[in-house]
């Protein structure tokens, strides 16, 4: 077995202090596709903000991963033998992407979520969830 990996080594960045950062998942939810309706002018302004936002997270080594998700897809729901059919249209909000980040604590993770430029353009919600860690194992 290798040495227990510190987060600092994992990320290969020097600025952050190892071991104190915790992992969080930020689940981004909006109602429908908000980018398509923007004008080129707003799109451009938005990209500039987004570039800064992501750039900062990367520079500080706080971004482990992030992906947008397609709007389509389906929900597998029920129990074995009795799955419900159909898409998950009960909630208007759809998860449109996620950020897997590192933060000192929940408070910082929330601040990072709030700083997302998405909120300047549209009504959205971001669910902030700490990744569960079992002491001595992860």
């Amino acid at each position, binding site marked *: 077995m290798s040495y227990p990996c510190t987060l600092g080594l994992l990320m290969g960045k020097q600025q952050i202090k190892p071991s104190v950062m915790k992992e969080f998942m930020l689940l981004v939810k909006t109602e429908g*596709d908000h*980018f*398509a309706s*923007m*004008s*080129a*002018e707003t*799109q*451009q302004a*938005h*990209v*500039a903000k*987004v*570039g*800064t936002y*992501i*750039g*900062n997270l*990367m*520079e500080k080594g706080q971004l482990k991963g*992030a*992906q*947008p998700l397609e709007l389509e897809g389906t929900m597998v729901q029920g129990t074995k033998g009795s799955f419900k059919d159909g898409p998950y249209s009960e909630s208007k909000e759809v998860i449109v*992407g996620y*950020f897997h980040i590192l933060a000192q604590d929940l408070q910082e993770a929330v601040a990072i979520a709030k700083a997302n*430029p*998405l909120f300047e353009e549209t009504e959205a919600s971001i669910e902030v969830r700490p990744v569960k860690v079992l002491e001595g194992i992860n």
Partner: protein
Amino acid sequence: MENERIATVMDHLFRHESGKIVSVLTKIVGPSNIELAEDVVQDSMTDALEQWSYKGVPDNPAGWLYKVAKFKALNILRKENSHRKYQIETGHLINSTLESSVDIEEFFSDEEIADDQLRMMFTCCHPSISSDSQIALTLKTLCGFSAKEIANAFLTNEDNINKRLFRARKVIRENKVSFEVPVGTALEPRLQTVLDTIYLLFNEGYNATEGSLSIRWELCEEAVRLAMLLGASELVQDKNEIWALLALMLLNASRFNARVDKADALVDMANQDRSLWDKQMIDAGLAYLDRSIATGNVSSYQINAAISAHHCTASSESTTNWENILKLYDNLAAMDPSPLVLLNRAVALSKTNGPQKGVDALITLQKEAVLMGYPYYHAVLGEFYLELKQEKKALVCFKKALKLVANNKEKRHLENKVAYCKSVI
């Protein structure tokens, strides 16, 4: 550092790259399918936003957009090959692209992009399209404006702009307008239309006194950018008129910010704070004017630019070389004796020969119906009467002008004049 880089890279990226990609794609799919090209680009931009919101902005955002747009276009073309939803007339281009005997990368070289933007300009400004629609289509395809932004710039609604765009595309399809820069003797008149459209676009931004200042300034910038594209191209040899138009636009644009004061009221050129005039722009304008004069033929853009240059280089209204300006207007009137030119000439005449001469000149223009419906005519005449201390006559003129203006800033300006006349009568 990182943020600065992004700010620089992003400056107009979406607008201008979309113009480039639409042009290149239009060459591939043919001008009948401009809308297909526009859709592909719009789609690519949306994808970029989405990806970059999570992944950050790539080092070469333009290259990223090209790749995505190319891929999308190829996909559609492959499908179209079997479905034929769009009538595709430049078959050879598409087929060779699909058979990959031509590498689509070649279409995205810097030179090709520049030339395609020029071809796009000539297509959008085809004489069979009305000038309203020419401007709308140019802004949509080459400048990356949305219908909504164009509507804001023209103080009209989106539906109206969409109708203009629809008509323009229809004319292109029906007249089978080709995607090329005309050659030989066909070039000159077509270039004239392109330049006139660019100048109209500039004036939409420059002369409007209402609407968002930033959008209006962008219209001016876009007009200058398009003219510079023409100036940089080897597809056009005789650039005299292009330099002249660039000179005119830059010299006028240098005064853009001085025309409204802090209280958002209009300021006549005579009363403008000349330290607010953009010196760098004036220098650039003068350089273009020199270039245009060096290359020969006199054009109306050139004379107008020379007039503007006289204003831009004078330290005040009183030290302005009005004699030369009057001569220039005489030359202009000889080429183009339009009522508007004669109206402006009358202003210069009043400066050199006194306001009574100005009044006389304007009275002889009363037969021109266009001028009678033009508020500026009555306002100028009013100013002449004010100088002659004939406030009653001035009052009549300002009231007439007031009835003709639609926008609030000009209304306020004229109301002040009316109030002044009443106070001294």
